[in-house]
């Protein structure tokens, strides 16, 4: 819980961040780390004595479109980076979501927050996750020491890949102050094929068939009836969507082949460029579930099993990543959601309504704890954020 009077520091330089964290260690001050603060609702935390916001670390250090790399401070807003790269015909290929509507959050997501939470959108199935695009960083560890890892080139195996460790560590190991990320050319065009009325299991088959052919699908989602009712589709039946992106001739050729392959699944419609973009924006933001008061879960599963999880858990679901990501609104107890997900070979994150991460257990849980201690032995940074009680 965050009391009203807790002070928020807004350091303007990495050195100031370092001083603040070092002081926090010396005074045993529990410190919450935020970017835009839009994901604060996710997970619980032990007592917080102060907040450090990275928002004033907002400099673009270097953007070399021809090198496909971008170096920025972590308080730079995601929306600003998207505009910057789009102006050069490039993009953050992992298609990061902001989830602001989904979480009813105020403020603007920052690139630091996106990476700390390893947030990736529909294109994750083709382009990889946020963690695959982080090439290097500067950070302040919980020890109050500035350190760096990685570099500014894509191919680099010099030292441990701490980038992977930082991505998805939710600010519990270090405060990222500067990051170098890989950017890619944006596709010239996109289009989406839609299938209608498929039950979940048939939709999973259709998505697998599309993924298993040479179609280079960059988005594969299934919206059961409840989710399909939302804008922009406003459909009165389930909708399954497959996105193709790239050069015009290539997209056209792949679409024609995919239509032939999908014949057994019934009627096929197309969404052209603008409508396709709008649709996938809504999938990325899980807009269909925004404003629903029920507990909200994000289940990461083997794609072919995705549809099975919600069938053991009454509620409403929506599938992305060809089934590998299931969004679920359910009143079922957290322990049951986690157990069903685990039994299918996946894991669950609760965004609203229960502990976010679940307990760390066994030798792996102990190892995760030792990794935390290696970077933050005093437990200063986001204490308890990834360590929910059993």
């Amino acid at each position, binding site marked *: 819980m965050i009391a009203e009077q807790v002070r928020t520091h807004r350091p303007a330089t990495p050195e100031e961040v370092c001083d603040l964290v070092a002081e926090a260690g010396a005074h045993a001050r529990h410190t919450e780390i935020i970017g835009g603060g839009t994901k604060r609702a996710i997970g619980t935390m032990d007592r917080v004595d102060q907040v450090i916001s990275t928002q004033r670390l907002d400099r673009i250090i270097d953007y070399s479109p021809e090198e496909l790399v971008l170096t920025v401070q972590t308080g730079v807003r995601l929306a600003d980076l998207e505009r910057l790269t789009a102006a050069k015909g490039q993009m953050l290929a992992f298609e990061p979501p902001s989830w602001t509507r989904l979480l009813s959050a105020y403020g603007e997501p920052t690139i630091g927050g996106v990476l700390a939470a390893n947030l990736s959108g529909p294109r994750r199935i083709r382009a990889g996750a946020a963690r695959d695009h982080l090439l290097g960083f500067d950070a302040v560890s919980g020890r109050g020491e500035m350190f760096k890892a990685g570099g500014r080139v894509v191919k680099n195996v010099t030292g441990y890949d701490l980038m992977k*460790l930082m991505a998805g560590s939710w600010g519990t190991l270090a405060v990222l102050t500067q990051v170098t990320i890989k950017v890619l*050319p944006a596709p010239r065009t996109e289009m989406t094929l839609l299938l209608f009325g498929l039950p979940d299991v048939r939709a999973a088959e259709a998505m697998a068939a599309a993924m298993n052919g040479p179609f280079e699908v960059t988005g594969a989602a299934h919206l059961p009836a409840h989710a399909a009712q939302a804008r922009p589709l406003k459909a009165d039946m389930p909708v399954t969507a497959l996105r193709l992106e790239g050069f015009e001739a290539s997209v056209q*050729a792949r679409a024609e082949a995919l239509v032939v392959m999908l014949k057994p699944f019934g009627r096929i419609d197309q969404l052209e460029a603008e409508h396709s973009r709008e649709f996938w924006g809504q999938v990325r933001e899980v807009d269909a579930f925004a404003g629903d008061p029920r507990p909200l879960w994000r289940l990461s599963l083997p794609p072919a099993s995705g549809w099975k999880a919600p069938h053991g858990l009454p509620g409403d679901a929506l599938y992305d990543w060809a089934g590998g990501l299931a969004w679920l609104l359910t009143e079922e107890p957290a322990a049951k959601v986690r157990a069903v997900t685990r039994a299918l*070979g996946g894991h669950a994150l609760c965004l609203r309504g229960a502990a976010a991460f679940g307990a760390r257990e066994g030798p792996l849980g102990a190892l995760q704890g030792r*990794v935390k201690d290696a970077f933050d032995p005093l437990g200063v940074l986001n204490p308890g954020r990834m360590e929910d009680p059993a």
Partner: protein
Amino acid sequence: MKMPAPDDALMARKGEIVRALRRIVPGEGVVAEPADLVPFESDGLSAYRQRPLAVVLPETTQQVSEVLHWCQANGVKVVPRGAGTSLSGGALPLADGIVLGLSKFNRVLEVDYANRCAVVQPGVTNLAITVAVEAAGFYYAPDPSSQIACTIGGNVAENSGGVHCLKYGLTTNNLLGCELVLMSGEIVRLGGKAMDADGYDLLGLVTGSEGLLGIVTEVTVRVLPKPQTAQALLLGFPSVEAAGACVGDIIGSGVIPAGLEMMDNPAIRAAEAFVGAGYPVDAAALLIVELDGPEAECAELSGHVRILAAERGADFVKVSTSEAERLAFWAGRKAAFPAVGRIAPDYFCMDGTIPRGKLPQVLTRITELSTAYGLGVANVFHAGDGNLHPLILYDADTPGELERAEAFGADILKLCVAVGGVLTGEHGVGVEKRDLMSEMFDETDLACQMRVKCAFDPGQLLNPGKVFPVLHRCAELGRVHVHRGKVAFPELPRF
């Protein structure tokens, strides 16, 4: 290159160590006779050799666990080994340690097309994964040149790349999960068949950790449907600068080829003499550009690339017209190292990465260094991602040449760092680049990495002497930083 001084007391216990290993791995799974240990003395970095105390070749995860548990309890160091093709000395044995070889873990356990993945044992070769899935139209994307021999376990340890990683990523981008045995003998599973991590991404951390964090006993890799068509172009240029500029033009125009390789004239000549791939032996530089996808895409992009090449003065253009011809184009490139091996008694293969734009500058400097050191050099690059492989030619039988070659190599890598690049793109630090780590990282950076090592292996028994230039005790590294000379409120409980 110095390794930590061997512990005489441990070496004196060889008989006891071998007996203990034989209790865990019966039969022929423990190699102890000096003559039988010779094949394990070195890996792909054959300039360095060391005979280990013994080699153990377990067959089950349980045996790996028991071996590590026993070694930890008895303070015995362990060097993991796959096929021994490392080019950085990652599997170089220790005189007072054992080698744990994974060659008996050679089975493909499961192919799961519904989830587009394969579960394999670490001793399976990189190419064997593709062979296991190709009948169904799939392949495993990372393709290091040694793919017929190198194992997936070694690929995980080194985060191996290959000529197609520009578009399809390195090993780390193509893994879903692994089973890992810690030095304590504990067995943990990282990841699985889902697409992101539960808790910290330890799978990502372990990938490329060069056998210092644990021993991988099972790997789940992503497999991809094969592209409909693939086409390769050979483009010869009158200057290295023009070829380098063309690389920038291609990527700058929004095209990410499946592969984008460059060879300089000595490398072209060596490869052509070796395999007869149809390379232009008079060109100063050769680009191999591979495009894949639907036929319509390959046709469009191939035309586009040819226009860009012509604008930079390419005077040799050849487009593959069949799959056999495409593979022949690559055969020359993939054989570049052995080809160079035929024109010089010995060579060192370097592995720095630089920002692509610095390519001409770095090449010019390498040529100057080559003259200064009096040693020849042939250059092979993964140009698309700026990964250089200068091959330094020398003769180990000529006194002083090995040391000169090492110094030349170190200068090249320092140059890579100086222009904004890194020491190693895909071969790993190992022992080869260990002493150069401080060119890239300061003491605090290295301490952060070594503390990760301590979280996995507090006794530092797993592959010590690799990656880090100085070994610190974990207790010393774990000490909490004292802010401005004092910890305030020292009486407060520290949790």
